[in-house]
């Protein structure tokens, strides 16, 4: 399909809080005499999507596909190699750090590792309330606000003077969530918010996230490698592979009618807890995971794709609409 760059998931024209266009993030590999570049890691190689106000987009993919990098680029923790990021209409892609303050107060991140995402030398109340204190956001006592936040996320406020190491993994993640909520952001990027937690705790934290969504209606980008995590909580889901988006659709459409072979393989990997359910076909993924330093030519998935045809080896498929609001980058959507 030719023409204008695809804008997946933009069926009803709502308020776009976030628009990402052609985002690329290439990390140079240092080699040679003076540390000259010996190649790049093409972590993110042309990703475009939008998130409306109040909407939750799930971003799924295996380890190394670049989804965490997308999240960090969105929050300008990296400066993108190419592309544009528009937040509330403002192009924040190349703004210098000191001008990002307004943006930063409206977009926050929940980090993956509860053990390294909290400064071990700060008390919990300082971790949660530091931004409030430094930017003087509370005319009242910032400690009051910290107290409120802790209650919100289900932590006893009298523990606010303790240090992170005195808390469990699940509790620490809640602290991280409280920190993200402190400035009442309009966009929350949750980078694998439950991957590092025990399965029994995962559900609790996901429920907490849903509760907070209902309450505050922020826009969310939820990054995960596990479709099951994202299924519940997302309005739309985007699937990423080796630096590119391969499928974007609404929650139900993606799960019920997956178009891209990779999505289909991912779905097959989700264990079904329904007794008597029809036994699904085994995943037909073969081959090694290619490296983001030297991605395969043509469709990046073709070496492992059960439905690959010769064309897949030479031409790269772009995201195309297979049904209204449902985009897939494949020459044989629904094939496998």
């Amino acid at each position, binding site marked *: 399909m030719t023409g204008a760059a695809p804008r997946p998931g933009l069926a009803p024209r709502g308020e776009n809080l976030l628009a990402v266009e052609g985002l690329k993030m290439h990390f140079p590999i240092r080699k040679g005499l003076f540390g000259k570049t010996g190649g790049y890691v093409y972590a993110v190689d042309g990703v475009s999507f939008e998130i409306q106000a109040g909407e939750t987009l799930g971003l799924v993919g295996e380890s190394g596909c670049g989804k965490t990098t997308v999240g960090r680029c969105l929050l300008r*923790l990296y400066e993108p190699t190419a592309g544009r990021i528009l937040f509330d209409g403002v192009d924040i892609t190349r703004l210098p*750090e000191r001008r990002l303050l307004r943006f930063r107060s409206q977009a*926050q991140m929940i980090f993956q590792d509860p053990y390294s*995402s909290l*400064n071990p030398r700060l008390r919990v109340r300082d971790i949660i309330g530091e931004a409030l204190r*430094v930017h003087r956001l509370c005319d009242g006592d910032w400690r009051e606000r910290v107290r409120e936040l802790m209650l919100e996320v289900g932590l006893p406020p009298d523990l606010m003077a303790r240090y992170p190491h005195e808390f469990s993994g699940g509790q620490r993640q809640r602290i991280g969530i409280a920190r993200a909520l402190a400035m009442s952001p309009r966009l929350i990027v949750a980078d694998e918010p439950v991957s590092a937690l025990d399965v029994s705790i995962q559900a609790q934290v996901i429920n907490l996230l849903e509760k907070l969504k209902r309450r505050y209606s922020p826009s969310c980008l939820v990054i995960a490698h596990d479709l099951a995590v994202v299924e519940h909580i997302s309005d739309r889901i985007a699937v990423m592979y080796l630096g590119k988006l391969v499928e974007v659709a609404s929650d139900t459409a993606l799960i019920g009618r997956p178009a891209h072979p990779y999505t289909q393989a991912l779905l097959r990997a989700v264990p079904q807890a329904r007794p008597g359910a029809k036994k699904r076909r085994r995943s037909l993924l073969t081959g090694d995971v290619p490296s983001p330093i030297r991605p395969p030519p043509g469709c990046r998935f073709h070496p492992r794709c059960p439905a690959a045809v010769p064309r897949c080896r030479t031409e790269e498929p772009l995201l195309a609409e297979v049904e209204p609001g449902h985009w897939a980058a494949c020459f044989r959507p629904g094939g496998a």
Partner: protein
Amino acid sequence: MPPPESTSAVEEALDPLPRPADLLLRKIWHLRLGVLGAFLIAGLVFIAVFVPYVSPHDPYEQNITARLLPPSWMEGGRPEYLLGTDHVGRDLFSRLLYGSRISLTVGLAAVLVQVVIGIALGLWAGYYGGAADSAVSFMVNVMMGFPFILLAMSLVVVLGPSLQNIILALGLTGWPVFTRVTRMETLRLREQEFVLAARSLALGVPRILLGHILPNLLPSLLVLVTFEVARAIIRESLLSFLGLGIQPPTPSWGTMLAEGRDYMLFEWRLAALPGLAIFLSAMGINLLGDAVRDLTDPHMRKS
């Protein structure tokens, strides 16, 4: 076939787990050494602070008639000169006591300079990377490869041998070791998620460096500071010994050693005792530092 009797030394060394008794003994031994070190340092500090009250004589007071007297318990000695006198009749014991002030002052002040310069450069190089890092690393390599003495001596000669200049010379030549550690740790910490979180909260670079990165560096730095103080004390005395440090008649242990050298043949205590003082001070600091390091971070313990 039954395995052969393994009594060989290699087999012994192959077993990486020592007997629990050995480990415990080692720990007690280390702690005991640490306590010894603490005592030595406490003594040093006490002397340095209270020396005007403790010292029996004025360290500058010369008495030609009482030159080169042996210690009081030996024949020819006098009771008021506990360890005897030096070549111009000054009481050796008092001078030894006053020397502690010089050593401690210079040691602490020099390390302070080193720390300020070293940490600032290390944080800058580690956080910003790129050109800053290359430049700083290059300077560190230059300075660490070079024998400190020449540089410090030249500095002192050019600036003039005063107490401040010695502190400056030592500080300006000793910072690289702090920069190296700070830089390494900053590089590592910079990628930690809590630093990313601090950035996403728009906290500003100074606050991130000082409030997030630096506090997590402190444990490693603290141990380093202890060892560097000991080194600074030795270096100061070395400069004084070579005549490029504290000038006589001020009683620096190094200067005393230099003066005493001429009398090595018969009054060897004039040279031996100041050196012993330096050795004990440095030893005490090192022992304490070792013990602290063993206690706080067992992985970093050198085997």
